[in-house]
């Protein structure tokens, strides 16, 4: 551990100092980094079963291969992030295999079922775009050098996932008919899901230290704007309705629905007509986790103990 105080380290990293390992960290820095890396690792890990169960809807052997290539990438990204956590004193074994499903820190979006090929491609178009938005900011701004280096690979591969999602969204939307309707239905539930993913608005944000320690550069609201700046024009180009528009006077994207609002996970329906709800109600929904939480976590953890038992015998 560093002999510096949190405030001294904050000043150093704001001046460009790069942290290389636990010997350079204060306890405050380590905790803030642990939270950030846990969310990153869990998100990558839980995207894998979500995409894997949806890959059965792939319409050809080529698309099977590309869907599974994405899943392979996501698992590798998760593995890299858990290794980074081990370097700062956490146990990968415990994080992956020792936690209950509700203890994982991935976003609510990866607790939802993807029920057809259109949902899988919109997920890679929207959710992976959210991933790139968040991780590009970290790559550009982080003071933690091992993470900055690891993100070179992750950024390259996430860009491929995004391209795969957008190409297929375009193809299905252009086809019209049922294909287009399925994409629109996916957009209807996944657009607000991704908006919510970026978390509390800035005026309510609790102090996390991630900005002060330069573990990221942009605020939640700024990141939401970056995501919308790519996603809203894409939807407009494809003739898909997205519940947001560019506001000239405010010079920013504005949502066309009450935010946050309640979600019916069974019907995959956002209750826009019931109006705005509190963030406490959102946290309560997140805490209960979504319908696929236990199934996805179980799919990752199963057979670990069996195989350990065989190997020990």
């Amino acid at each position, binding site marked *: 551990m560093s002999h510096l105080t949190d405030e001294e380290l904050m000043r150093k990293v704001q001046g460009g100092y790069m942290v290389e390992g636990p010997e350079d960290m204060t306890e405050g820095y380590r905790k803030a980094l642990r939270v950030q890396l846990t969310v990153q690792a869990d998100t990558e890990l839980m995207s894998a079963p979500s995409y894997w169960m949806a890959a059965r809807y792939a319409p050809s052997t080529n698309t099977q291969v590309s869907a599974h290539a994405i899943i*392979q990438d996501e698992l*590798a990204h998760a*593995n890299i992030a858990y*290794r980074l956590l081990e370097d700062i004193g956490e146990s990968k074994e415990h994080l992956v295999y020792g936690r209950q499903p509700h203890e994982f820190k991935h976003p609510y979006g990866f607790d939802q079922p993807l029920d057809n090929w259109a949902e899988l491609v919109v997920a890679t178009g929207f959710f992976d775009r959210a991933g790139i938005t968040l991780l590009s900011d970290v790559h550009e701004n982080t003071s933690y050098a091992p993470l900055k*280096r*690891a993100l070179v*690979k992750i950024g*390259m591969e996430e860009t491929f996932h995004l391209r795969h999602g957008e190409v297929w969204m375009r193809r299905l939307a252009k086809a019209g008919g049922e294909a287009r309707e399925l994409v629109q239905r996916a957009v209807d539930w996944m657009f607000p899901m991704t908006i919510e993913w970026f978390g509390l608005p800035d005026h309510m944000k609790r102090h996390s230290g991630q900005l002060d320690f330069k573990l990221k550069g942009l605020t939640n609201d700024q990141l939401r704007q970056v995501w919308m700046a790519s996603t809203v024009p894409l939807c407009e180009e494809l003739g898909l309705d997205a519940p947001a528009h560019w506001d000239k006077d405010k010079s920013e994207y504005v949502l066309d629905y009450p935010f946050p609002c309640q979600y019916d996970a069974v019907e995959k329906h956002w209750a826009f007509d019931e109006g705005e709800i509190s963030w406490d109600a959102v946290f309560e929904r997140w805490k209960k986790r979504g319908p696929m939480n236990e199934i996805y976590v179980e799919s990752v953890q199963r057979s670990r103990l069996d195989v350990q038992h065989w190997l020990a015998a």
Partner: protein
Amino acid sequence: MREFVYDVFTRKERGDRLQHVGYVDAFDDETAKVYAWTTYSEEKWFEMCVVKRVNVLPVNRTDGLYVDAQESAHD
């Protein structure tokens, strides 16, 4: 199942530097090669090598991950 840390080095093209790209945990050298090849698959590498971290000898530093690896190897 005791695993070891292996650092992964790659050369993208003939004539490029061999660069550290990351690391994997593996039971032995053979699984380390497989895990490295499948984990760091973002390029068509000209060359990839793995090095067991305990075999990396720190020269000038007295702290950091490579020193820790040395210490844990002698526990």
